[in-house]
């Protein structure tokens, strides 16, 4: 079943009087449980594509369907609810909330969808922090964490609510290869066990090695769309 359907998507940014096309006629279907990377040179439209898929932005033209719902028809509130319950974001610049600890940053995401079961929330948050390698650092604030640790908090925040879709913009950019691998393993596990769909925008070959599908974008168009098994990266 398709989680996402993009039909003839165009996105044009207006910079003063100049129109800058970021995406030109993208057609894309993403099935539930796919582990996909989107790659391409800088400025090719990867981030724009992720923003459109994540209901953060609207296309200039074309149709996007998320779980068969046309996003065009939804208002801001409905789009916010889709993001809240279905989508986890990992941004390159972490975007953690500085006044909250690592635990609270992760807790925040789950509180938005479940504010009742205290113990369950606490266990979930501690578990995901442990998985991303932050056990013992739960009470540190973002300014007390390294870049890699912050990115792990951001990843934990995106994963903790077990969304249908995780969108990750260069998630391994600030991680060493060992941590990248550990975190990717977590994502693969979630993908396999929960059927979570992952879409990465990345240049990192390691991330591409894990992907089942690789979409290359050039000049705002899909240049190549390769489907296949992930490489064996266990070694």
């Amino acid at each position, binding site marked *: 079943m398709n989680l996402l359907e993009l039909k003839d998507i165009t996105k044009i940014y207006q910079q003063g009087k100049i129109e800058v096309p970021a995406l030109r006629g993208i057609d894309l279907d993403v099935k539930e449980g796919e582990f996909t990377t989107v790659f391409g040179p800088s400025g090719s439209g990867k981030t724009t594509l992720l923003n459109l898929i994540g209901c953060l932005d609207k296309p200039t033209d074309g149709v996007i369907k998320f779980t068969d719902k046309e996003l065009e028809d939804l208002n801001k509130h409905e789009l916010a609810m889709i993001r809240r319950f279905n989508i986890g974001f990992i941004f390159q610049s972490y*975007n953690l909330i500085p*006044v909250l600890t690592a635990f609270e940053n992760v807790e925040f995401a789950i509180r*938005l969808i479940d504010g009742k079961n205290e113990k369950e929330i606490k266990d979930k948050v501690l578990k995901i922090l442990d998985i991303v390698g932050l056990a013992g650092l739960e009470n540190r604030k973002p300014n007390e964490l390294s870049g890699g640790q912050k990115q792990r908090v951001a990843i934990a925040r995106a994963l903790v609510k077990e969304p249908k879709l995780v969108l990750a913009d260069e998630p391994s950019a600030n991680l060493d290869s060992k941590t990248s691998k550990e975190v990717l393993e977590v994502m693969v596990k979630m993908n396999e066990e929960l059927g979570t769909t992952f879409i990465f925008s990345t240049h990192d070959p390691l991330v591409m090695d894990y992907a089942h599908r690789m979409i290359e974008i050039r000049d705002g168009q899909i240049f190549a769309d390769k489907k296949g098994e992930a490489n064996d990266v266990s070694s």
Partner: protein
Amino acid sequence: MFLVKLALKNLVRHRKRTFITAGIIAMALFIYIMIDSLLIGINDITYNNLINLESGHLQIVNKTYWEEKDELPLDNLINSDEIKNIKFTNIEGFKGLITELDFKANLNNGVNGIPIIVKGINPDNYKNVFSLNKFFTEGEMFSKGDYRVVMGEKLAELMKFKTGDYLTLLIRTKNDTFNTIEAEISGLLNSSNTNVNRNIVYLPLDIAQRALNVEGQISHFIIKLENKNIAENTGLSLEKKINNINDNLGVYTWSELEAVTFLKAKQSVNQLILLIILVIAAIAIINTVILAALERMEEIGMMKAMGLKIKEIIFTFVLESTGIGLLGGIAGILIGILGVSLLNKIGIDYVEMFNIDMASFGVPIIEKFYGAWHPEAFIFVFFFGVFVSLISSILPAYWAASKDPVEAIYHR
């Protein structure tokens, strides 16, 4: 609850900024409380001066006389035994009743003359209503039938008089003829009422009546009550009784005097000043919220990406501002209590501080200014501080929360 926790954490995120903004609010509220206290204190002193030395709490006069009272006419006077059948001691809060005959005269020292007001009074009971006796700096009060007067020290100074000197009062009688009164100065006053000090000469009532050819007649009955707050109700019930005897007579309260009306009119200007102070506090809050929003744009973008609704983001900002308002409000109230306590205890000696005469500004006070407790002002400014903080943060918070999430995240 988590959003409340986030708002509280944001409150202590920039302690200095929170402290400064709360400080500005506290200072604005403090200034409001102090000015309000001082204005009420000045009003109280001014009203008490009027009541204790000029007007009393209630005046019984002929209704036509009241309309022309500024001219101090000799028409429409009242017989001094007109209301002798009324038992004033039965009136709630009654303290004293006197008679007075006010008229215009020209005070002459043999070289110069100036227009003044003369009050014909009964020296035996005048103290039952007016506290003139405690302001004598020289000499003494005259007795009935004496050709002697009492006047303010300032007026005596102006006319180069001293106790024991003789003066001439040039007057116009009821029959529109001129007459003069030669009298000795028996005493000088320095009261807390500038009008008494500068413009008034006191004379025995019987001498005044004889000279004006209005024997047995007075211009006012003046009544003192326990306090000024009961004047209006007491006045109304008294007027009913008096009108049974003579419906040409009216009972007027101290607050119906033009001087009081003028002071009350000035209060609207004071309210405007106080409003400006409160607007400054509102601007400080709006500024803080805008700065906070600009600084946290990426964070707001992330919140939107996580699925927070616009109203939830606004809620965190508004809660944070309200917290600042609460802190500022509490601090403002505390320093306000301290300030008003000091103001009430020490007072402001404006003569010593600024070397000015407030009489020039129409404020008949020559003593220190003291504040007055006005609990309503404390309650008002506290809630105002919190309310303004809340309201003034909504618009900038809405602006921040409505930002396109992509623009916010990537700070475009």
